[in-house]
């Protein structure tokens, strides 16, 4: 072994010693979040911002499904659990929960499509290929291009659960990855139908992309309707803990619910629960 090997060895030893020193000197520098893979990317981004604001703190995000979020929280294996749905009454009795964002998905079609709303049954029929032509729904003649999401995506899960479908039953013509690809596919195909996060679709429409959001059973697909809870195809993204969370976790919850976090939430195509911002808007005309 030459000088290079020795240097590397020394550096390695130094690093490991430094690592030991770190964990021994401060106890609360690491925040562990486990659970839903839907919440994880958001928690990760929030974590980065939180780390930047609190030097020395490290936020560790691990996925494994909402059920892991609960299980780890009750065994004390995490500081906060991540759960991508509303809690049941039993769960509410056992855990404390904090909503950090809402996720809503809506059906989109091309701007030239004359339809403005579809019922749940109609959507189900389209995705099972029982309805195969827009004419049957009162639109122009044309074979429907069914756009579905790739396996493992949270939007797919929510869609399947709401319409009570199995992914294997869906007769898709196109399978997409992220929301952007779905929006581009629909924008380029007047016969296509897809479902994407409402936040992403609204941003694209604002930029002039030729798509439109369909109302579901008459309820307009808007971020407003997700906030006030009237839009059916939505869910709350929560952080949970059993008993009171530790101070660092409390600090993180406060940060995740603060207006500072809204931009991060919107960048992830979720809807922020900006009750304060909404209030400010209501007050504005009176002043």
């Amino acid at each position: 072994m030459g000088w290079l090997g020795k240097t590397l060895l020394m550096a390695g030893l130094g690093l490991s010693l430094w690592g030991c020193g770190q964990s021994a000197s401060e106890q609360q520098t690491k925040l562990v979040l486990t659970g839903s893979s839907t919440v994880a990317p958001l928690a990760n981004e929030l974590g980065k911002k939180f780390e930047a604001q609190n030097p020395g703190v490290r936020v560790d995000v691990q996925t494994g499904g909402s059920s892991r979020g609960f299980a780890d929280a009750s065994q004390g294996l995490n500081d906060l659990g991540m759960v991508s749905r509303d809690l049941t009454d039993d769960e509410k009795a056992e855990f404390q929960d904090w909503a950090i964002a809402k996720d809503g998905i809506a059906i989109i079609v091309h701007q030239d499509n004359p339809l403005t709303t579809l019922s749940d049954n109609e959507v189900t029929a389209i995705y099972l290929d029982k309805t195969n032509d827009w004419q049957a729904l009162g639109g122009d003649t044309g074979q429907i291009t069914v756009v579905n999401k790739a396996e493992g995506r949270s939007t797919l899960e929510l869609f399947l659960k709401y319409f009570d479908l199995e992914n294997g039953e869906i007769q898709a013509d196109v399978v997409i990855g992220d929301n952007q690809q779905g929006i581009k596919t629909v924008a380029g195909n007047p016969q296509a139908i897809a479902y994407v996060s409402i936040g992403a679709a609204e941003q694209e429409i604002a930029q002039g992309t030729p798509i439109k959001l369909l109302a579901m059973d008459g309820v307009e697909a808007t971020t407003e309707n997700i906030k006030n809870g009237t839009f059916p195809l939505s869910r709350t993204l929560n952080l949970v803990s059993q008993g009171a969370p530790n101070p660092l976790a409390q600090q993180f919850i406060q940060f995740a619910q603060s207006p500072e976090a809204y931009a991060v939430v919107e960048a992830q195509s979720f809807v922020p629960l900006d009750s304060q911002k909404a209030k400010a808007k209501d007050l504005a005309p009176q002043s």
Partner: protein
Amino acid sequence: MHLNPDLILLWLVRGLGTISAILVLLILLFLFKEAFPVLREVGIGAFFFDAVWQPTKGKFNLLPMILGTLWTTLGAMILATPLGILSAIFCQFYAPDFLAKLYRRLLELLAGIPSVVYGFWGLLVLVPMINRIQPPGASVLAGILILTLMILPTIALIADASFAKVPTSYLTGSQALGISQWGMVWGVAVPAAKSGLMTAGILATGRALGETMAVLMVCGNVVKTPTGLFDPVRTLTANIALEMAYALGDHRSALFVSGLMLMVVVIGLIAVAEWVVAEGKNYG
């Protein structure tokens, strides 16, 4: 202290060579390691004989995607090889000098366009166009056309370079014998440039097999063995890119098997190409 520069160079080259070799082996090892859990659990057969690809439900049939990869690549090669070689011949033997130069620059530009740009163009222009002929538009055909565009410059540029390397004496000699221009190109230049043309083919096939973003955007990605040019298809690469971000456990592991399959296809391809070149040398 005496240092022999040759010796330094020798060990430097040996060292760097070893690093490249080790990198390839490490990648293979990593693929195996990540793929191993699911291979041990369900066996390799599941990836060919399961009914469908539903990794979250423990069904792992990769066959439609292996076929998808092979079909799109094969289609693109069938279109791009003659186009590429003929444009190289045009450039080298027929075009006036200024035109040949301009043409080469254009091909280089085509080769330099990032794949995601091809993908966007395909999604916004090509797919809607095919959709008007037969919905849904995102199809094997779209994939083949995009891949053809992407590998065409690779083939044309390498073929052009290998034609340029054909010794002038061969060409002047054949002209002296009174062979027609085409006879010279086909009978002398093409056989003389054969190994370069093979290299062009191998590199282009490799690029077509490994292309991910553009194919993912235009192919439709439905996991079903396509029965025609207008059916949507999912390739092995698109499968990994689509599902990796949210995959856990066996699902994730199965995606590494996709990667392994892709490696197997590529290794098989290189072996066949080596064999063809070796055969050519025996009889050529």
